């Protein structure tokens, strides 16, 4: 088995994934990132540019890119597409008025060639708000069932309480790992 064993070992050493987090402004992307990393979320300010976090989770090294969602920044999103393993699309579940905007932005992202291989995780964020749309309503509003080009999953979550963040990321990691790493 000589060579194969060596190759396997090398792969295991660099279990690295690149995750890109996008969504409309005010969706809670930075708050999710900070909460996931165990940081204080009360100081989060609107992202003028982007944040990168490298963190270890379940033996994987995750490079998470959180890019600002303001209209004026969306044209720069494409600069971050290259070699993305997982796309995290964050939705403000309480923002009904922009759900259609949200659907359009997502569907144009999914046409991107450089994101073709990426797994899609949709976070229906802000489930802690009493007026938030349910995960199923978001799924319908974003027409997720029509997505055939990517593996996808939707999770209701709350960045403020931290609910379901881990479950969502775990699903994403499992799906990516099954695709790019020698599973063992």
């Amino acid at each position: 088995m000589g060579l194969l064993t060596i190759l396997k070992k090398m792969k295991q050493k660099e279990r690295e994934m690149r995750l890109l987090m996008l969504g409309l402004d005010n969706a809670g992307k930075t708050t999710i990132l900070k909460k996931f990393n165990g940081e204080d979320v009360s100081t989060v300010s609107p992202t003028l540019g982007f944040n990168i976090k490298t963190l270890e989770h379940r033996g994987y090294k995750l490079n998470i890119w959180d890019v600002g969602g303001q209209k004026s920044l969306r044209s720069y999103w494409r600069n971050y597409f290259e070699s993305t393993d997982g796309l995290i699309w964050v939705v403000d579940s309480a923002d009904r008025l922009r759900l259609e905007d949200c659907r359009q932005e997502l569907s144009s992202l999914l046409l991107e060639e450089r994101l073709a291989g990426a797994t899609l995780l949709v976070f229906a964020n802000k489930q802690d708000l009493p007026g938030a749309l349910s995960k199923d309503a978001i799924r319908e509003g974003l027409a997720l069932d029509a997505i055939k080009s990517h593996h996808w999953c939707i999770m209701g979550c709350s960045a403020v309480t931290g609910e379901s963040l881990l479950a969502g990321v775990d699903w994403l990691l499992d799906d990516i790992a099954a695709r790019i790493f020698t599973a063992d």
Partner: protein
Amino acid sequence: IFDQSEDGLLGSDQKGCGVLPLNTKVHFIMEAVVASEKGACHANEDEESSGKSNVPERLLKRDQERQEELLRRKEAKESLSVREEKSDFFTSAFNKEKAAIEDVLSGCTEGDGGTTATVLEEVSSRIQQLQKFLNDSMAFLTQYELRQAQASLQKLQSTLGEKRDKLMPKKKFTFRSRNAGTSKSKESPDSKKEDSPGSTAVDGTEGRAGGSRGPMAVDGVISEQQCGLSNADSQVFVKGADEIQQSDVLLTHLSNCKVKLLGSPSTLHIKHVRDCEILCGPVSSSIFLDHCSGCTFAFSCQQLRTHNTTDCQVYLHVTSRAIIEDCSGVRFAPFSWSYPGMEADFEVSGLDRAKNNWSQVDDFNWLSAESPSPNWGVIPEHERKSEWD
């Protein structure tokens, strides 16, 4: 065939000093003959073809040793390489399993509800195993084989998806749903509208914001849990903590109104508001303004996000940052409004009273650090409003 030739080369290269490769050897012998029979070499064509017979015993023996060595090496190599690491083994095993899965999938038809689910489940796990097999074999496959295998896996996966959609459309991704009970009413705005014809200010949003267009329908509905105001002109609204405490509040399509929100909402959205005065108690997270003009606001919040807004005054307490985008003529001053019970609401909101960044506004359309953005400014002290009625 490839293996053998490779072995041959390997053997001759490594043993170069001891035994020469066959053709070199013939040449060597020829030279020896030439040397011994000077001048007669041209005529003697036979000499070349029957050269082997003239080879001294010693060389013959070496040749035999070489052959044996080759054989030994070949055997050693074969015993090293594993059957599972041959690409033809992979191809046949992969295709066999693929065909088997395809058979199961095509044999799967409508009507047998329970069994269909188990069959599809089984197919799904078999596809996953096949993917794992491919992953494990990646190291010794060629790019082409890898692509082919990956493509057929994708095809299998999509066939499975189609089958699943067709046979059991609702079974996809059914995770636990928090609001399972309420989601139904949100998803069917039309029926809801008929249920409550006595339209309150809240229901009125449907008409303008979303009711007319298909995909927007879900947007316009304000569920029972969301509170808000919409479509009003020249009115005064006061909402107390009982209505707005820790909930998400939405104000849309208001003009010439006065709104007081006495309590601590969780978040506040204000859209399409003209010439209004809106005063709001401490908001735990963000306030989102869009398409407002000619308004006066008093806000305290963690973030203020202002979009497409012109000529507004904001009396602000913001603990992290205020931003503007596509705005002009927005002016800021420190928060100065108060109402009885505001201190308690600040406690509820969790906002830090000592931290106020009201004058640090990020303009997303003005990224220059040297000169200040022309789109916003500070209200001079003598112009600031001190009386709130």
